[in-house]
């Protein structure tokens, strides 16, 4: 539809302040956290009510206009990248906490409420919302559900899918659906699980009910230094083997330790090849006992130094280094490319070594910070976009890392989502019948493919054309397609 005609039609049922179409108004929406990809939509809509969302979606369905939903735009995979022919639907105005149910320990919120906003609102009741993606100060809960966001506490407290009990969604046809319930389960298929991490492909989230948890009586952090990154990797497995489930278990390599130290002065040991940060939480006595267990495991695993944060200030400082690792690495290099593969923990040493080899081959440094407890890697590839060919080189390096993750039994994305960024790597992870099954599921909710088109699941042709043709055991991966 022509831009002018589309806007005229939208203004027939939407107040003018909800429809943005001048260049200077829509430029802020042309990318999300993956700023290497930019695209202006025809129009940005900022509805204020669920009824308006329903009207917008019915309209787009009827006129076949693509719709991309957006929360705070902090996503790292381009999931909220606008569609050139479409509408960008911002849920930013849905920023109210609707109900806090202390008896059932739940909070019912609009999708534009920030992740941290929920915890802030319930802290006075001794409660919090557990998933804590690093963007938690800005990212919205609607976006968290769409991406099934994680964070540093997933091993013990789970991902978004484990902490959301119900969502209200609007289908592309404008229908309102409740998925999940305030009970512990709901009748029918577990559509709530299906919608978590569906990247805005199946419906638009207009309300979220989350599970709240009681703030643990105590949290303690240990910092352990290692002279060998493989030893640090093995220590992770030994902690788990000792029967302890840490609240957080993070690893940083030498390059990221140095970057963090230069940036925030967390007093990290600069001579270490790797450090582990291990947070234990729970009731006071259990935390004390577990701290003793972890200390002795770390000693046996060959830690060169073990520190236990003596107080809350020191605990915050230990974490500050880790939490500022990305911006810290950002200071070392004009650009960096953040990956998000996940691997079985036991493959950590192998993957780390291979990554170092690749770093030499590509002649690009890589800094590693991991959610080591759950095997989620965030290698940061350092490059300079102003040097011709370096972005492309960094992207190939990244693609090689993800292929390696898949080959050792892991996945191309642990928590950032596929979006546009990793759509080609989906061809590495899935075979064509699986991709076809995804498309069939998509079509069950959105027959015409209007919600977030071109994201999350590649077409079979794309995979075939890509040359992502990894012939395995002599079997062609997409035998049903013509070859030219």
């Amino acid at each position, binding site marked *: 539809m022509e831009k002018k005609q589309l806007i005229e039609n939208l203004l027939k049922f939407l107040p003018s302040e909800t429809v943005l179409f001048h260049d200077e108004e829509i430029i802020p929406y042309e990318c999300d956290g993956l700023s290497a990809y930019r695209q202006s939509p025809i129009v940005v809509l900022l509805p204020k009510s669920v009824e308006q969302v329903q009207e917008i979606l019915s309209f787009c369905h009827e006129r076949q206009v693509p719709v991309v939903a957006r929360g705070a735009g902090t996503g790292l995979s381009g999931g909220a990248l606008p569609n050139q022919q479409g509408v960008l639907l911002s849920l930013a105005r849905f920023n109210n906490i609707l109900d806090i149910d202390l008896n059932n320990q739940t909070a019912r919120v609009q999708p534009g409420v920030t992740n941290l906003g929920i915890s802030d609102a319930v802290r006075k009741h001794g409660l919090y919302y557990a998933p804590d993606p690093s963007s938690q100060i800005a990212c919205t809960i609607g976006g968290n559900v769409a991406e099934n966001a994680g964070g540093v506490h997933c091993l013990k407290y789970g991902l978004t899918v484990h902490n959301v009990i119900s969502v209200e969604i609007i289908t592309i046809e404008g229908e309102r659906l409740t998925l999940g319930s305030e*009970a*512990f389960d709901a009748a029918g*298929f577990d559509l709530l*699980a299906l919608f978590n991490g*569906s990247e805005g492909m199946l419906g638009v989230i207009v309300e979220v009910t989350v599970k709240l948890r009681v703030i643990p009586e105590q949290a303690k952090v240990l910092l352990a230094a290692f002279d060998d990154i493989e030893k640090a990797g093995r220590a992770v497995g030994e902690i788990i083997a000792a029967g302890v489930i840490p609240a957080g278990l993070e690893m940083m390599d030498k390059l990221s330790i140095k970057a963090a130290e230069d940036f925030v002065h967390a007093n990290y040991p600069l001579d270490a090849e790797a450090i582990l940060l291990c947070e234990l939480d729970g009731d006071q006595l259990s935390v004390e006992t577990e701290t003793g267990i972890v200390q002795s495991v770390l000693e046996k695993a060959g830690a060169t130094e073990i520190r236990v944060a003596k107080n809350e200030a020191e605990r915050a400082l230990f974490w500050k280094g880790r939490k500022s690792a990305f911006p810290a690495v950002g200071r070392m290099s004009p650009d960096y490319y953040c990956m998000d593969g996940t691997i079985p923990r036991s493959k950590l040493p192998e993957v780390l070594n291979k990554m170092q080899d690749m770093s030499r081959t590509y002649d690009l440094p890589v800094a590693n910070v991991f959610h080591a407890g759950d095997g989620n890697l965030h290698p940061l590839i350092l490059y300079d976009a102003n040097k011709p060919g370096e972005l492309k080189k960094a992207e190939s390096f990244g693609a090689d890392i993800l292929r390696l993750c898949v080959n050792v039994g892991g996945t191309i994305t642990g928590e950032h989502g*596929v979006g546009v960024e990793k759509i080609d790597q989906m061809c590495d992870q*899935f075979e064509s019948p699986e991709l076809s*099954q995804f498309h069939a599921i998509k079509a069950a*909710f959105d027959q015409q493919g209007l919600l977030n088109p071109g994201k999350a*699941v590649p077409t079979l042709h794309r995979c075939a054309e890509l040359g992502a043709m990894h012939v395995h055991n002599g079997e062609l991966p997409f035998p049903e397609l013509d070859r030219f």
Partner: protein
Amino acid sequence: MDLSRDLQEQLQAMLSGKQPVAISAGHSKDFYGREIKGEPFSVADHAGVLEYDFRELVITVRSGTSINDLQKVLAENNQMLAFEPPVFSGKDSIGGLLACGLSGPRRPYVGSARDFVLGCTLLNGKAEKLKFGGQVMKNVAGYDVSRLMIGAMGTLGVILDVSLKVLPIPEVEKTLVIEKPLNDALDYINNIDTQRFPVSASAYVDNRLYLRLSGMEKPLETYLKHIKKHIKEDFVEADSSFWQKLKDHQLDFFNTDKTLWRISVPPATGVLGLQGKTLYEWRGAQRWFIADDETHSNGHIANLVKQAGGHATQFRNADRSSEVFNPLPDVLKKYHIKLKQAMDPDGLLNPGRFYSYF
């Protein structure tokens, strides 16, 4: 034994003849869901552990593996399926359990069966072998089809193998019992200071409140002393086998020919105005109910539970020719049918087992 290829071929043959397929393994939950007619398709012999490294907290098993065998393997490494799967006959398979989506007493405190699923391989309604999710804790590549399979009653696909997150067995568990009036007990369960007291199960039956505490030995001993000294409650320690009998429906309460209802409501829901016997568990969120003779119509029970924000299932001894699960709103029904068509275009996998219309 790996029968995935045989099973795929067998299913292909059955589907090409447009025969409805009735999936089974241990036949331990034949009573559950609607009655269906279909050619038997058993995954019982497709059993065994595929991969298990206790350091990973992940086990991958074939769907026909019996839950008892699986628990044994885990216990050797001091680990467990933390959602405490019910075992009704001893032949219960992990695939069947997951298809039914059932969880035991620890569920409100650690999560449900689906929460522990990391990935699965399945045969869809075209007999295609598909793999979703994986063996890692975090994985957001593609739609979460593996968790969608949990509780789908085999209507979306045949689970071939599954990767589950496992957890360490707590060092010590103590069961405490106290006599209390119902309303006080429900309040108590929901207001207990979980920051200090690591509750891992709660139930109320026959005027008694049962609590289980799990954790490390020393802290737990200290807290038990604290309870005895500071909380003026007459708790006595009881046999921990209560929880196994509860989850496996071996308590006297479950010994009935009448319809056994499973009522799922928000945990802080008060007493529903139902005439009959009720057993409460899961902090009050799961209730087993047996009506007094002819006091309530099925619709009345479902409505009352719906008003409380929950749903009701006729779990055992139901008229299995009509609906046994809670009715779905029309729009939801439409998307269930569409999703079924997306996974099983000819509608041949366990048709009618879940709802009459797919």
